[in-house]
């Protein structure tokens, strides 16, 4: 009993991929596929004199969530920022294709990824595209895919796109989601374009709370294993009982919602101004709010 209580309190932000998976799934139900003993390593990293990892930075397999069979992919942020290389991406694509054929209750992808692994840039870019297609094929086969953005690398670059291709996005307030990282924008476009050392600016621009307030993140959770599980189960239930999102009508509605966001906030310039326009009182206080408080405020104002 004590063991399971401890497990429920685990924070995912700095946890390893294996620890996240173990804490997320029902106790002792995880079976890893193509694990480290298979030594599937990157064929490209040795060119850079970089060490390889026997799982290429991603843990895949199956297990149970509240008794239901789910497939999982969990990225290891400690290995090259969880980045997607050829083998890493192929393992995830394999999981998604297998799911489309065998129909588990869901695929759960625990993101901790800065994007394409630049040391194998072209192969990584292809891997992202192949994962996107496999993901959509999986959804079309009726198997939901959940994005749990839990790790310190968040979901950036290709992973930022991939996470938003999923049926539902669950994130904690401390993670970041986007395409071009502030450091990359600063390097390519200059510090006046995006000052990556301004942590508060970075956070309120690409952080979980801002993404939640737009509706880009469906559920904002407090970073504890029990909350991640609960949110994933609620998301599955909502998908199973809710309207089909993956339809032409759904895409049209999404397109118009995205157009409205540009119209309403395109000239705002800063998240603080956007939050103000959303009608949230005292936007300056949002960065300090606890998750339940923020969720309540957003619901009270009809933002969500």
């Amino acid at each position, binding site marked *: 009993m004590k063991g399971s209580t401890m497990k429920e309190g685990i924070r995912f932000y700095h946890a390893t991929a294996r620890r996240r998976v173990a804490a997320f799934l029902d106790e002792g139900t995880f079976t890893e*596929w*193509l694990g480290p003993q298979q030594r*599937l390593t990157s*064929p*490209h990293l040795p*060119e850079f004199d970089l060490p390889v990892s026997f799982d290429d930075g991603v843990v895949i397999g199956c297990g149970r969530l509240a008794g239901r069979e789910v497939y999982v992919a969990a990225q290891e942020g400690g290995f090259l920022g969880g980045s997607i290389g050829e*083998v890493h991406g*192929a*393992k995830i*694509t*394999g*999981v998604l294709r*297998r799911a489309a*054929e065998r129909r588990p209750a869901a695929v759960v992808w625990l993101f901790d990824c800065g994007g*394409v692994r*630049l040391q194998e*840039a*072209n*192969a990584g*870019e*292809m891997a992202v*595209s*192949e994962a*996107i*297609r*496999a993901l*959509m094929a999986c959804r079309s086969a009726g198997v939901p895919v959940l994005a749990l953005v839990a790790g310190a690398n968040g979901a950036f*670059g290709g992973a*930022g*796109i991939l*996470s*938003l*291709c999923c049926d539902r996005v669950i994130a904690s307030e401390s993670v970041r*989601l*986007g*395409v*071009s*990282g502030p*450091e*990359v*924008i600063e390097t*390519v*476009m200059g510090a006046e*374009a*995006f000052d990556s050392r301004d942590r508060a600016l970075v956070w309120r621009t*690409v952080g979980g709370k*801002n993404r939640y307030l*737009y509706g880009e993140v469906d559920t904002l959770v407090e970073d504890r294993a029990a909350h991640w599980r609960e949110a994933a189960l609620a998301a599955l239930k909502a998908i199973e009982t809710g309207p089909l999102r*993956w339809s032409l009508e759904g*895409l049209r509605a*999404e*397109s118009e919602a*995205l*157009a409205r*966001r*540009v119209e309403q*906030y*395109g000239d705002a*310039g*800063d998240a603080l101004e956007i939050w103000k326009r959303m009608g949230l009182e005292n936007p300056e206080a949002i960065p300090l709010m606890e998750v339940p408080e923020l969720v309540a405020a957003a619901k009270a104002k009809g933002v969500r």
Partner: protein
Amino acid sequence: MISEKVAALLERLFPEGAHAEVEAGVLSGGATVGGETVALAGVVDGTALGVNEVVRLSRALLEVLERQPKRPIVLLIDTRGQRMELRDELLGLNQYLAHLCRVLEMARQREHRLVAVVAGEALGGALIATGLMAQEVIALEEANPMVMPMAGIAAVTKCCTTMLEELSARNPVFTPGADAFYRMGGIDRLRPADPAAALAEALNEPVRLADHRAAQGEGRGGRTKARNVAERVVALP
């Protein structure tokens, strides 16, 4: 307003005639290929793909999906990449690009043959959300796909640009450009001598939903593990 560059491209690709309009870098229109009407959409003139461009492109594509069932779509791509600005990141560009992926996937699922023509720059996330969603990619002479400019790669990998340039000279996994992407399996037809004929041929292929690119990359020696690893996961007991 159509630039000379776009006008020349249309002339080269569509000898049977094409009409298009370009609004702030986003192209929409139609053409005739082999006597058949095809829809045109794309991002041209090196325009960056930001939230405004995605909205415009998405609307143009959805218009085709709603009104012209099964009409083939040709995507024209010449973009310097996803827009690298605080404003676009602030508004959630990742969601906009994911939306574009979904729209193009929906087009293929609804039996629109979808062929991409890379006719210039094609960087990073912008390529992922456009050309790489097509059933076939044709790279013209001027195509220059890449993941990220060298300065950005150097900043992220903390390698110096001299070392990176030296590496990129001998390893296609890392080299910018169409040849390298061809080796990876991401380009189907590389610098065809007759682009219009190549496009007509590509448009004659049936709708293809299965992803052939990892096998293609393996056959060309660019990616030795991708196909094998994914298939091993699928084939596990």
